[in-house]
């Protein structure tokens, strides 16, 4: 039983085993038009464009996931349960306060913080750490290296409230990672990792591009450029899809 209406509506087999998941459906369109061969748009439900095409001969899909943990979780459940997808790779944007990271840099997350309640039914107050697939992370890391694209690898933050009233909160809630390393912060990673963890053998990864920086504020990417400014991340994600497909075949 689904609690909200479906996000994706297409034929079985229309979506590849490996799906790249930008939050913004327009970035899905951009990636399909610029990187994929023979791409076909298989979904327009809710304006969440989804395309399937080929990259270096590997069948790849790219599906807009929407914003926030709920959106990406519903998207992931549908991709896995209804369309048999095996590898879900989020390609998104993030903020950063890490002095080693600059706007435009590619970030690969090993694990994500969680402020959500989405593991409470199973784990109560225990710490279930939302974790990416090592195999995908390793494939992405090696692909980035081979293509000369620098990546920052580390833990990322995931928040649920974009417009939180931070001045009303004690610092241990408004800035819980203060003093601890965190390469970036975004709003979907935890949802993706938690949803995918329910399906043994299904893998998830989180690749993000730094689009705004707490320290280097003058580097911020203008909103209009976000759609096109992330070619490095897209290249790493597509090379990862190609790599895991080649490894599976060999």
């Amino acid at each position: 039983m689904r609690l909200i209406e479906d996000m994706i509506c297409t034929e079985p087999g229309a979506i590849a085993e490996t799906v790249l998941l930008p939050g913004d459906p327009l970035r899905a369109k951009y990636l399909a038009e610029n990187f994929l061969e023979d791409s076909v748009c298989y979904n327009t439900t809710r304006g969440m464009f989804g395309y399937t095409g080929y990259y270096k001969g590997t069948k790849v899909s790219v599906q807009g996931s929407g914003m926030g943990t709920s959106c990406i979780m519903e998207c992931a459940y549908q991709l896995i349960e209804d369309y048999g997808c095996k590898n879900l790779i989020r390609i998104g944007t993030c903020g950063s306060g890490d002095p080693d990271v600059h706007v435009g840099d590619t970030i690969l997350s090993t694990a994500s913080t969680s402020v959500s309640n989405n593991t409470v039914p199973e784990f109560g107050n225990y710490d279930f750490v939302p974790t990416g697939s090592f195999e995908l992370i390793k494939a992405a890391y090696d692909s980035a290296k081979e293509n000369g694209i620098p990546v920052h690898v580390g833990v990322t933050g995931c928040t649920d409230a974009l417009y939180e009233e931070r001045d009303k909160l004690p610092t241990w809630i408004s800035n819980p990672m203060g003093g601890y390393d965190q390469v970036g912060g975004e709003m979907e990673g935890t949802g993706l990792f938690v949803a995918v963890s329910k399906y043994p053998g299904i893998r998830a990864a989180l690749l993000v591009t730094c689009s705004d920086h707490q320290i280097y504020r003058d580097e911020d990417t203008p909103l209009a450029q976000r759609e096109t400014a992330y070619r490095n991340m897209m290249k790493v994600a597509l090379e990862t899809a190609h790599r895991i497909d080649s490894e599976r075949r060999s």
Partner: protein
Amino acid sequence: MGLCLTGTAADVADVVFLTNDSLNVEWAAENLLEDVYFYNEIRNMKGCTGKYKGVPVTFQGEGIGPVNAAMYAVEIAGEFDPEVLVKVDCCKALQADIALGTIILPQTAHTTSNINKRRFGGMTFPAAADFELLNKIYETAKADGKTVKVGPVLSIEHRGEMEIAKKFAERGAVALDMEMNQTFTAGQRFHKPCAGVLVVTENLATGEKMSSEEAKEAFHEVVKFALHAVLEV
């Protein structure tokens, strides 16, 4: 230097190996290291520095459980200025397809402990290995032909939590230990790359278990592997 350890930063090498059994430290001192110096005089929790194949290295006991790890790992990382922390211990596999003797390299560590929930204001903290260090150990294991598994582990607080451990296993946890979560947290707190190199001596899904002699031997082998991988000797 703190409440748990005597000695100074000069007594501790750049690379610190942590283990939950203080007697493992004595074993390393007697069997692996040269020019050994024991620096801790409190509670019989051994800590020593010596040379392994000419490279300085420290072995420090951290006791059992998240509470102990949150003392010793924090003190060693925060006050003794090491560069790298590596936890070497035995663990229990949570998946039926993981053979005894497999080396587990924890990528992250879930926990039943409340230490981090309180510390981070209710947020789940991603206690995680340093990727570059983890990757280096993984690559070495592959090159050496070792059976190795990378994934999340669960650090429990006490042995009464085996039922909840099964739920974590259903959601991908590969092995069970008691200190990894707080050891990672200490590394992340003090910006010290940290990894775990654990050997499976029991499988909770299949009921298989090494004898205590076999387990001891497996531990000794994994320590030698970890030294080789981390120190590159």
